[in-house]
Structures are given as C-alpha cells and as structure tokens.
C-alpha cells in the first residue's frame, strides 16, 4: 500500500516539475484515457485485496483500456459524435463498482475476519454483481 502511495507521489512530483504540457488539442483523449487508467488501478487494488491479482491482466487492462478509450474518442470526433461519453459512463460505473467491492472488503469481510471468496471478484477485480 505504501509503495503505491509513494509511487503516486513520485509521479505527481515529476509531473509538477517537468516543463512539459499536453497540447490543448489532445487533452480530451488524455482525459478519457486517464479515466480508463484510474479504473484499471482501482481494479488492480481490488484484485489485490481479494487476492486475485494477475499482473498480466492488470497491465493489459491498464494500457489496453486507455488505448481503446482514446481510440473511441478519436472515432467519435471523426464521426461527429461524442462517443467519449460511452467510455466515461462505463469506466465511471466500474470505478464505483470496484470501490463498492473494496468497501465491502474493508468494512465487512475483514471485520468478520473472513477471507474473500474467489468467485466474488474476477481476476481484474471487477465484480459481476453490484
């Protein structure tokens, strides 16, 4: 857990001090890809908690979802539709699902001192039920 927080901080510090910037034209794509990435990270943390973490699934989900989200946005701009809304809705709802699953684990399952059963969470951390 601490590693993750520290590495987040490192990333933020690098971002603050690097004189780089994302050109205005691309901010939409990076925004959507970021949402997908954050959802993957939450999924990864969830999987860690439920001990179903799979590094391959995590990495492929992280970069794959981000890439596909950006691609959908791009296709949307070419077609003249706001297709990024689809990505936003899906990843947003998965974020809440993952967070709900984590909450249940922390507040209920740990309190009961029960190990989360594997069928509850898939390998990338996304639950089938709410």
């Amino acid at each position: 857990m601490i590693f993750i927080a520290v590495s987040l901080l490192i990333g933020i510090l690098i971002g603050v001090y690097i004189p780089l910037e994302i050109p205005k034209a691309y901010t939409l794509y990076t925004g959507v890809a970021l949402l997908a990435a954050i959802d993957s990270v939450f999924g990864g943390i969830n999987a860690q908690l439920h001990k179903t973490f799979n590094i391959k699934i995590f990495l492929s989900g992280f970069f794959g979802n981000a890439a596909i989200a950006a691609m959908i946005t791009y296709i949307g701009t070419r077609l003249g539709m706001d297709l990024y809304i689809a990505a936003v809705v899906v990843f947003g709802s998965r974020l809440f699902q993952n967070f709900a699953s984590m909450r249940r684990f922390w507040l209920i399952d740990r309190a009961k001192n029960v190990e989360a059963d594997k069928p509850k969470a898939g390998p990338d951390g996304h639950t089938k039920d709410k």
Partner: protein
Amino acid sequence: MNKKPGIFALSVVCILLGLVVTLQLKSITKINLRNDSQLLRAEQLQIELKSEQEKNEALYEQLIRYKDEIDSYRNSATQTDGYAKVIAQSLINAELLAGITDVRGQGVVVTMKDSANINTGGLSDSYFVIHDEDIQKVINELRSAGAEAISLNGERVVSTTAIRCVGSVVSVNDTKYSAPYVIRAIGNAETIENALLMRQGVVDVLTQWGIEIDIKKEADMIIHGYSGATSPVYAQPVKK
C-alpha cells in the same frame, strides 16, 4: 500484499498515472486561464461599448426632442403674423443651404468604386483605392455645377464637414465609411452630369486610374439633413 512483481508493476503504473494526471491538470488550468483572461478583456470592452452606445442613443433622442420643439415654435410663428412668416421663410432657406433639413428635388447620384485592376506593376496599393482628394474633387465639381445639397454615403455635406482618409476608410462627419462611395447631389441634373463628364474633367482623370465612377440622373430624390450638433463656438454673428 502477495507478489513482488505485482507491487512493482502497480508502482510503475502509479508513477505513470500520477505523471499524466498532473500534466493533464497543468494543461487544463493553463487553457482555462488563457480563455478566461482573453474573454474577460473582450467582455470588459463589450460592456464599455454598450454603455457608450446607450449614452449615444440617449443623446440622440434628446437632440430629436429639441428639434421637434424648435419645429413646433416655428410652426406657431408662421401661423401668427406676417412678419414672422417672412422670417420663418428665410429661416427655412437658411437651414436648407446649411444642410440641417431634408430636401428633395432632381439631381444626380454618383457612385465611386475602388479600382478593380490588380496591382501588377509593383506600385503602391494606394494607387488603386479612392482617396479623400478624389471625393473632394468630385464634390467640388458638383458645387461648381450648381449643386445645392450634397450627401456622401448618407451623410449630408455641410460647411463644417471634413472628408478625410483614415487608414483604408474615409471619415465624413466623424463617421467612417468604406468604398463604394455614393454621392447624391440635388441641382440641375443635366448641368451636373455634363460638368462631371467634361473632357479632362474629374471623371475623365479618375477613370484613368481605374476608379469606377457611375453617374445616374434622378428626377426626384431625397437628401437627408445633417444629424449632428450645430452650435458654433468661435463664430459669432455680426450685428448689422
């Protein structure tokens, strides 16, 4: 926490995530700031412009009201007594020549357009546009041909009217106009047209530069009066 590669991968990914999130935030705040400051300045200017326009309108309405008052005084004067009638008539004549009232009669409409020729010889562009001197020459010619009322693009030319080049447009009575310039003149249409079309006359010389001049005679046209302020400050009437 179980696997080492798991944590390592998560950490690398988190560094990347933190980096991109911060970059995105930086870019977006900069863009918003830039938009805001530009918009603010434009908004400010818009507000100022609007207030000036409203003031202008209010003053214009005041002017119209005063003119109506004066009209009503004049009407009552003409209806009362003979001497007042004579004075009123000379007032009407004076106002007509001064250019404050609307007038109608036969006359000529002169339309001047910039040269349509393309500047091929490397000459300065000023050779191909209409200058204030050209307009002044035409108006001078109109006057010498007996025009009694002249207007340029709707602005009545009065004794205090200045026609000047301002950048690429012409300013008449402190209002800017651009080509094409439409000059209306009331007088003897035949005489005026002939005066303009004389050989080596104004139209002849100007068309040599490629400036398009179009003259049309009208049997009945209206020229509006000068709508600006008319109180002299330095000139005082001499008591006879």
